[in-house]
């Protein structure tokens, strides 16, 4: 009985490994195609991996590049945004995302936010969800170790240093947990999307006959509002604060 389990586990591992290996091969192939300049074929390779249910910041970044080179800026932005979520502090991803955003038609003036909120989100974007999760664990560990040090070292000065840094790491732990939860929520309940249809009319109500409020072009980032979606329609907000209903078929969730 036990042996069967072991065999089964090994089999699963083997298949999984083989598939992942296959995907690594496709990634390599995509990179080679990209180097040769056949961006379309490269994008197909990358897309194959994405469609197979894999994700990695490198994969999304390279796919974004392949789409960018084909001037499919909306898809490029979608890929870059996904890459950005996985490694928000990557300079290349940020650079390319910014460039791709310059290529789209809609130049939305973002609503200014309170500077503290801006700072916090800037700090949050230093690490990905997993990065914050690991940081929370690490800081908790360091906090604990320093507390032990505080308790058990002899001299007053070391006690003081140990206590204050322990408190700091406690705060860091709480901060990381908060950031990790916010970042993870973006993965578990994604609420942003990129418009993929060339032109979309945003309506005042979730039906075809609704009053036309404004139009958005491909590549524009949408944020879902709290309003629950109505069959086939979702209420969205764009960066300048305007809200309206948009058909689900016209965008893709990041």
């Amino acid at each position, binding site marked *: 009985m036990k042996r069967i389990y072991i065999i089964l586990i090994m089999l699963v591992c083997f298949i999984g490994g083989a598939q*992942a290996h296959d*995907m*690594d091969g496709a*990634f390599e192939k995509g*990179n080679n195609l*990209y*180097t040769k300049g056949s961006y379309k074929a490269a994008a197909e390779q990358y897309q194959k*991996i*994405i469609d197979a*249910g*894999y*994700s*990695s910041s*490198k*994969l999304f*970044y*390279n796919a974004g*590049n*392949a789409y*960018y*080179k084909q*001037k499919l800026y909306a898809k490029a932005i979608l890929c870059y945004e996904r890459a950005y979520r996985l490694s928000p502090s990557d300079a*290349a991803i940020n*650079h*390319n995302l*910014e*460039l*791709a955003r*310059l*290529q789209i*038609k809609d*130049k939305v003036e973002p609503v200014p936010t309170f500077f503290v909120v801006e700072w916090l989100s800037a700090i949050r974007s230093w690490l990905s*969800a*997993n990065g*914050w*999760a*690991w940081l*929370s*664990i690490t800081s*908790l*560990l360091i906090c*604990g*170790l320093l507390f*032990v040090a505080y*308790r*058990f070292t002899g001299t007053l000065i070391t006690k003081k240093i140990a206590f204050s840094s322990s408190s700091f790491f406690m705060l860091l732990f709480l901060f990381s*947990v908060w950031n*990790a*939860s916010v*970042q*993870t929520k973006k*993965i*578990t309940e994604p609420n942003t999307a990129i418009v993929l*249809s*060339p*032109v979309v*009319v945003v309506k005042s109500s979730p039906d075809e006959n609704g009053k*036309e409020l404004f*139009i958005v072009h*491909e590549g524009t980032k949408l944020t879902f509002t709290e309003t629950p979606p109505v069959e086939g329609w979702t209420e969205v907000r764009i960066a300048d604060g305007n809200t309206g209903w948009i058909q689900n078929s016209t965008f893709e969730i990041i």
Partner: protein
Amino acid sequence: MKRIAIILTILATALGALADNVTFVAKAPRVVAVGEQFQLKYDVNVMPDDFYNPDIKNFDVLAGPNRSQFRSTTIVNGQVSTTSSISYTYILEAAREGKFTLPAAVVKVNGRTYTSNSIVVEVVKGESSSSSSRGGGNSSSGGEARSSSRADVLLRMEVNKTSLYRGEFLIATLKLYSRADLENLGEPKFPSFNGFWNQVVEDNDLKLNFVREKYNGKIYESAVIRRYVLFPQQVGTLTIDPFQLTASVIERSAPQSAFDAFFGGGGVRATKRLSSVPISISVKDLPSGAPASFNGAVGSFSIASGLSRSKVRANDAVNLTVKITGTGNIKLVDAPKISFPADFDSFDAKVSDNVKTAASGSVGTKTFEYSFIPRSKGSYTIPALEFTYFDIKSRTYKTIKTQSLPIEVAPDPTGGSGSGLQGADKESIKLLGQDIKYIKVGSPALAPAGNYFFNTTSYWIVLILVLVVVVALFILLAKRERESSDTVFVKNKRANKVAHQRLKKAEMLIKSGDTHGFYEEMLKALWGYLSDKLAIPVADLSKERAKELLESKGVDNEIISELIQVVEECEFARYAPGGQGEEKSDRFNVAIAAISKLEQTIKR
């Protein structure tokens, strides 16, 4: 043989072509008086082979048919064209009042027969017994002529309807009726047609074309001066102002002499200001319930639309042409509103019309040309255009639609960001000059999509593990510390206790002046302690012996020497005079410390 056949064929074709141009028309006045003589003329433009006399009934044929021939040859730029016409003329006299038909005549030209039109002639009661055609004859009595001369020339405004819908059209005809010799006409004052939108019917011949017409039981020569197509713009009763004209007439009077009559004299020139009677027109409003797309078109229309191209590139201009064709107030039709797809830039329509105003109303086509520019790629549909008009015949609103037009927009080959001029600030221009960073190579570190670590079981396990490690470490360290601190403390305490017990008596003597006693007690206690500790009698104990034994027990040399020193000092001080209290307490403390240390070192 064959050649003859060809020639014959050519000939036949030529003749056939010739025969096709045959016109055969009957002409006669439409109104005549009883007893009046008039001409009936059959004109044919080709020499006929045969002319069949019509069977003329109800009229007395006084003469005819008289055949007359007319031929003209014109040479224009060396091209010779010949026209000829043959007329068969009858002189008829109407015998009775009534409406009679002059039958058609038949001619034969090149073996084909042609039939002329037939003419209906109205015969009215003659007002004078000896009336001749076209007022040429003299009136029988001057008085009668004078009395009738006032009505000899008159203006009339004829309308084909007096009650109509707003937007519907009516035709107003200005006519001049005359029974006298008109010499001159002038100073016309045409009506202003307040409340109407008017169009003058473009008649080809501007000259007055007089025909006979019966009016008020009299025969007049009438001519149309002008025709108007009028579109009422207001609801209610509208009045068409009179039309005024000055006419010079030669009023005939009875000839004074035969000489006068012969030279056509005897007439008096009179100038009259003529005026037509104003006409009231009642205009009804269009029935309610007009569809939203109705914008005032009345008549009968059709609509068509088309695109200049159905496949374009983004940012290319495209034309949408909408043509409205029909009869009615077409010139007043507004450009229909077209709802272009939201992303298109559209411009105002360019309007052109080709409308002819004829006696049957305004007929023609109005063309609207809309220019628009698609800005993004995609498949779009220009929605069907609705056009509603009020149909006069059925008195209902009719809505006609164009086809919806699909348009395929390909991406702009120039990159599409041509319209990116909007809001391109300095920073973005700087950035546009750059290219994207190159792809990343190496292992992609693939993970299943939607993978996350926070708040998963493994996260909590790791977190708890960390907590467990820290807590375990804490507990471990605390335990160890407690253990170590416990033994030292207890030992210390006990050793101190032993030392204090031993030196109890000495301690009591520190503050007393008995120095000798103090040191005696000190030595006694120390030696007693050492003998106890080393398990040898006091008598056998010497400093050297004690040192040896202590060393053998593994006691630190420092402690031993300290102890020995205290003993020596006490022995010395025992016999020394004086001695300070401070010295005593110092030695006492040293002794206590030494014993304590010894106690900790040597296990019992």
